């Protein structure tokens, strides 16, 4: 169980990450706010609670690794990294600009704290499996977290990677799925149904838990489930049910906000909502 104080800290971190997402996509005039907002609380927990990382030494060989397999949620990752101190928060306003280190999709050689180039869906999870295998082979005890989208589950390479992870007993690999139920062309169930995901992952040899991806007690329980599985010889899957666009009312559950930036007025409304929410968290 996380303390009340820790919970407040993580809620504030989630609110900050959301502000960063809106600011970066607004200044970029493009990007993917919807699927970034749905992942904000998961990233807050990872970067401000779970992962053994130090922004001062982003290449520490013993650090935990994070791979954003749903690379289009780069605004969420960049926001988490900036608030964690990997680079100045002001950089977020340069997302997707010609002179910025913040590419439309993550680049490990340009942005401090990014552990793998991603953007092509399905790519990240198998690279994360390689990292986890590398940890086992080199006798290091770092853990690898890979965040995937539910739409991404239709990529064949996802299941190649899961087979590999189970075969090699990669219990140091934690597969997080941001199940927001929407993708570019509509509802994930309608575009290409992948349900039931829990049974599929279980059949592939994983330990699976399903929790709410916005409630911190739920997120904490899911990660506790992962931690308890160290030594089980099974990769772990955390299925987080989330709301696409979470935190910005007009974006919530709208597939249209998958890959569209807010305009001036939309940005102002979103920031007012996020600021108000953040202020409320402060006084609770």
């Amino acid at each position, binding site marked *: 169980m996380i303390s009340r104080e820790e919970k407040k800290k993580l809620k504030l971190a989630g609110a900050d990450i959301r502000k960063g997402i809106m600011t970066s996509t607004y200044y970029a005039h493009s990007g993917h706010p919807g699927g970034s907002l749905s992942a904000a609380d998961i990233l807050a927990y990872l970067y401000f609670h779970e992962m053994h990382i130090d922004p001062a030494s982003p290449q520490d*060989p013993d650090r935990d*690794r994070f791979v954003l397999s749903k690379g289009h949620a780069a605004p969420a990752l960049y926001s988490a990294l900036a608030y964690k101190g990997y680079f100045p928060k002001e950089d977020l306003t340069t997302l997707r600009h010609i002179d910025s280190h913040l590419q439309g999709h993550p*680049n*490990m*050689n340009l942005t401090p704290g990014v*552990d*793998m*180039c991603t*953007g*092509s869906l399905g*790519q990240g999870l*198998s*690279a*994360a*499996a*390689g*990292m*986890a*295998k*590398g*940890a086992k*082979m*080199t006798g*290091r005890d770092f853990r690898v977290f890979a965040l995937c989208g539910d739409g991404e589950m239709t990529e*064949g*390479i996802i299941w*190649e*990677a899961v*087979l*590999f992870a189970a*075969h*090699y007993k990669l219990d140091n690999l934690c597969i997080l799925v941001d199940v927001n139920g929407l993708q570019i062309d509509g509802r994930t169930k309608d575009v290409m149904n992948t349900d039931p995901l829990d049974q599929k992952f279980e059949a592939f040899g994983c330990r699976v838990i399903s929790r709410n991806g916005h409630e911190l007690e739920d997120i904490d329980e899911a990660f506790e489930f992962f931690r308890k599985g160290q030594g089980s010889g099974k990769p772990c899957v955390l299925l987080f049910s989330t709301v696409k666009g979470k935190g910005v009312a007009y974006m919530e559950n709208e597939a249209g906000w998958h890959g569209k930036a807010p305009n001036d007025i939309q940005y102002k409304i979103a920031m007012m909502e996020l600021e108000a929410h953040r202020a409320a968290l402060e006084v609770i």
Partner: protein
Amino acid sequence: MTDKKMKATRVSYGEAITELGRLHPDIVVLDADLSSATKTELFRKEFPDRHIQCGIAEQNMINVAAGLSTTGLVPFASSFAMFAAGRAFEMVRNTIGYGHLNVKIAATHGGISVGEDGASHQCCEDFALMRSIPGMTVLCPCDDGEAKAMVKAAYEHEGPVYLRFSRAASPIIHEKPCDFVIGKGEVLKDGNDGCIIAVGITVGEALKAANSLEAEGIHLRVVNMGSIKPLDEALILQCAKECEWIITIEEHNVIGGLGEAVAALCSEHHPVRIKRLGVQDRFGHSGSAAELLKEYGLTAETIIQTVKEMREIHSTE
């Protein structure tokens, strides 16, 4: 070639990676259910804990190799050229290439000399695919000695390397240890009447053709260009300046391979007549390696005929 010693460069790869593995504990080898064909079974038997069987899933194998490389290991990912460069292209490009990761892709069964398996397994597009990836080094040896030297050079090079080996045996050209350097070609026979620039299994044929024409008083230069990328630009331009024309030959589609690279370089810096021999924008076919090399015009006979045509054109100009 029956009088010469022959060896398939895939066998050389298996031997070289095993030998190198004894010296360097950071080397790991990945396979996609083909270790008996890629000849990495030698490594697998000696270092079972450093061999990673990935099953028939080449895309995943390439990305796993990428992930492994970030933990300080030096992965050699092995499969047939068709699957390593072809099926897994986007993973090679987006994960290994874009990340500029220290992964070596060791592709066996390149070109049509794969033989009886036919077109589905005969990759004649891998040079084109791999050389178009920024920062990728692309190598293809002509014989056993060069193959072993290339495996060592690939290991010592920091960054992604694509190595292409053959299934079919090719003659031993380097009797002594070969000093291969990435970005360097080698002049195997001197002459100024014309220049043949060859790569891989065709180098032996180029030498055979040049030696046969020497008896007719035609002094041809033969260059082995095992480093497809980076090219030995200085050597190629020197050949363009000192020889009347250039013939390139490769076991690859003439689109996108060595010939185009040489032609592009010369057209920008020292235009000279160039004839590109290779697979003429066709798919492969079943047959023996020898039959296929003849059918696709990759033998000494085709080179000799082409030399005569080039001399005819040059004399009338």
